């Protein structure tokens, strides 16, 4: 048993090297008695490096703990959220220091969700100008265009002014028309997206 366990991965590694590369070229879609051996060979891919034996791996029987990646548990409070008196802060301080030293750069920020810093730079004059532009030519001066021009958030533009009723009516008709032209696939996808968002708010 022991020798088998030790031998198997080594042979697997040797045999699977080139098979891995061959998988993408032409895998038969159906299995027949004639193709069974070939299919089996091709599906025999190299195991993950953590499962392979090396000089450091234990020599006796042991348990392999390699859980699949999953979202962190909400019951484990992030250190920043712990209150001042909590002992966990000091207990984990050493681990945090080592992690911080070894950490690489942070993941990239998602551009569309970047923080728009509130600058409070717009005066009453600017706000009046936003309102004037939006009422005079709502077709051309859209909310996003105005936000870009005045260097503020679209939320702020919406706070300042409202589209004239004719514009709103036009928009409603436009969206209704688009909605009516949608096929069953697109409609289903929309509904599912809506349902998923509701589930996300309940963390399900």
């Amino acid at each position: 048993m022991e020798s088998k366990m030790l031998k198997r991965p080594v042979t697997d590694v040797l045999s699977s090297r080139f098979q891995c590369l061959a998988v993408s070229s032409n895998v038969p879609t159906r299995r027949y008695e004639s193709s069974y051996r070939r299919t089996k060979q091709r599906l025999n891919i190299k195991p993950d490096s953590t499962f392979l034996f090396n000089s450091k791996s234990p020599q006796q029987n042991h348990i392999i703990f390699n859980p699949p990646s999953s979202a962190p548990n909400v019951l484990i409070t992030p250190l920043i959220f712990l209150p001042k008196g909590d002992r966990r802060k000091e207990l984990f301080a050493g681990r945090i220091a080592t992690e911080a030293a070894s950490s690489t750069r942070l993941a990239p920020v998602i551009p569309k969700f970047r923080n728009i810093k509130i600058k409070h730079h717009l005066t009453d004059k600017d706000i009046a100008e936003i309102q004037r532009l939006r009422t005079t030519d709502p077709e051309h001066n859209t909310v996003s265009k105005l936000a870009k021009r005045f260097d503020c958030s679209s939320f702020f533009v919406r706070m300042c002014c409202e589209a004239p009723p004719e514009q709103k009516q036009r928009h409603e008709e436009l969206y209704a028309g688009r909605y009516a032209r949608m096929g069953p696939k697109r409609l289903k996808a929309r509904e599912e997206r809506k349902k998923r968002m509701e589930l996300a708010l309940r963390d399900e």
Partner: protein
Amino acid sequence: MKRIQLERWSGQLLSPRTRLCCLRQWNQSTPHIGSRRLQSGIGAEVSEVLEEEESIRPIRAGEFASPPPEAAARSAKLAALHARLALPKKLPLQTMARALVDLSADPDPQFNNTALSQVGGSLISAYVSEWLLCHYPRLPMTVLFAANYAYQGPSTLTKIGKEWGVETAAYPGSEVDPGLLQFNKLTPGSKVPSLGVSTRPDYAGFYRRGISSRVVYDDEFGDQIKFPEKDTVTEPVKQPTDMAYSNFVKAVVGSIYIHAGRSAARSFVHAHILSRHLAIGSLFQFKTPVRELARLCEREEFEFPVARILSETGRHSRSPVFVVGIFSGEDKLAEGAGPNLSEARVRAAVSALKAWYLYSPGSNTRVPSEMEEMGAKPWTPVHIDMGEIIH
């Protein structure tokens, strides 16, 4: 501090006829009206103390609304229930029998469980609330109400009562085995009777019933406390099954408190109610989690939460997966996965907020009621949070 001698009080619960010390004869000449009980303790009807053997009188079927206290000693069901729950020996079977008689079965407050369930309900509510507040000090009020309901609401107490093996009597009466739960069953499909008018001073419909006012005026579940109207005719009340079971479970806790004391009642509540697992994390529902998290970081003076993309797969495919992490400065608050960036960000924000709200000082946190025990260690203050995020 002077302690209350509960043993002296508990004697009142046993009706006079069941107590050997003061067996009294009731006036035989008084006509029996319906199911009304004639108490030996009521003024003019008290005649004299009799010997024990003289007081035993055969009881005719249908004479009383609920089984007589003597029947409790002969009931196998009741003795089995007492043994099964490992109740203290100080708690007599007669009180157990009384805990099983609902208000709708016997309107006489000396023979039904109304008083016992009132005491027990208050105790359960106190122990559950203090446990929740000490173990999850940051829970929002709505979640706290829901958690309270999940631990000690009528449906949970019904489950507990059924798990104890208590069954309902088809119809209450004096001939029924006292080991069965006795109440006047509400017929299926009929309307649940109104409990009366609200005790809130701002009862009128145009007032907003906000969460803060619920904390002040309403019960532990955030529901209105109803008080029966005075001028209504007392019809035979009918009770839904869950209310009858929940009154019974509360009455058991109340009777343990009266007969065996506070610590016995406390350990009973911890063993039967607080030992149940509740996934408090599943009680949350957010409306605008991203904004709420931003407000939280602002309030607590953390850096503004930024969504960063940790990994992604199949961006241009039919079913892509994005893993988005929410960071405050260099600290990762939470991460979430979704088929589009917005959903992944919402999921990440929701789990960050849940991580904030579900903070717990640990499973061995002390609760205030532990201080009531003799020789308790000096009290160390528990974490009291600032309150939920208002956005």
